[in-house]
């Protein structure tokens, strides 16, 4: 049971922070684009870069989840 629960919790809890972060990031970028539409191209590029960095934190959680799922925690058998 715990073998199934652990990876689920790892990715589930780990995705909360990046989710909020990406939301805030896009909010800021969209407000900036609305205020200065003439630089929206540049803002979009930086926004996507920022999203990738925020997303990679969720990916770390995913890696931990996958490790738990396919390799298993040592001493848990």
């Amino acid at each position, binding site marked *: 049971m715990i073998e199934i629960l652990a990876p689920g919790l790892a990715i589930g809890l780990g995705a909360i922070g990046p989710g909020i972060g990406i939301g805030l990031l896009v909010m800021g970028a969209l407000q900036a684009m609305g205020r200065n539409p003439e630089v929206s191209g540049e803002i979009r590029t930086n926004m996507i870069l920022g999203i990738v960095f925020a997303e990679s934190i969720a990916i*770390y959680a995913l890696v931990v989840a*996958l490790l738990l799922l396919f*390799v298993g925690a040592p001493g848990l058998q």
Partner: protein
Amino acid sequence: MRKLFQGKNLIVIIGVLGAVVVSALFVKVPLPTILLPAEKIPGLQIGGFHITNTLIATLLADLTVLLIGLLTVRKMSAVPKGLQNLAEWVFEIFESMLTDIGGKEKARAWLPIFLTILLFLLFANWWELVPGFDSVGIIEPVEVAYAQNGVSRGYEIESVAGIVTLTDRQVILDKTRQHEIKTEFAAAEAADEEYHPHETSGGYVLTPLLRAAATDLNLTIGLALFVVLMSHAIGVRKMGLKYFRRFLMPVITGMKPIDFFVGILEFISEFAKIISLSFRLFGNIFAGQVLLFVMAFLVAFLLPLPFMGLELFVGFMQAFVFAILTFIYFEQATHSHAGDEHH
């Protein structure tokens, strides 16, 4: 909008939807075996060194970059056209981007390494989307696969038009059988002979010949180590031994407590760089691969298509992020630490 659902279009739409429903109901794709370490290809080893499928994919990506490079420089002209035009366009875009970050001199100096990493990772990631990746390989009994890679779930096989494929009927090794195989395999290893299971359950496992290169941690950690070590080399070349001041703050500046902690943080952040670079790339590509597997497993027709588009984007983005971070780390290494200025 109304025209879309008339005449020929309507037939095509209904046909596609019908195919999706039929494939969802009747075409069953087995879920590929998902393994974290790269699979060793059975029977392929050079002097005790096992060739893995990610290694072959890495070489394939290398060859692609080399081939495109050679094709580009084969016919050079003052007025570029074709491939040369494309290459110059790519070159100019990234040169101007790097100039914005680090200035013209550094952009010129490190553009080759930037573009090498970018193109290599781009092709390594995009190769994953080519049909045949993860699906063409060597089929072996699940007992052998369990002994070598720890796979306990196999599928029955059937032959369709001369090609052997896996069906969706599962064969799962239970705990007692797993234990038997382990002891048998250990005995065969000790006697230095090839392992043959004395009975087979009829389940088979596919070991793909090719698997996306970045789904192997050996590649991503190796690349990240190279980048971080190279950034230190660049720092030492620029500033000599003064470069290490940023890590040895207390010795140089006379033991201010804050500097001591800054030095420790700088030191730790070097290791964090290696981990974040390698796991970001590995995690994204591995997760994308699993996503594609699962989507093809749910509905084999049309459903994986949007996710392949997503993977196209993710593959480029991760290659780009890796390359741009390489440049940023190199650039940071040439700055003397802020604390050095005031003494």
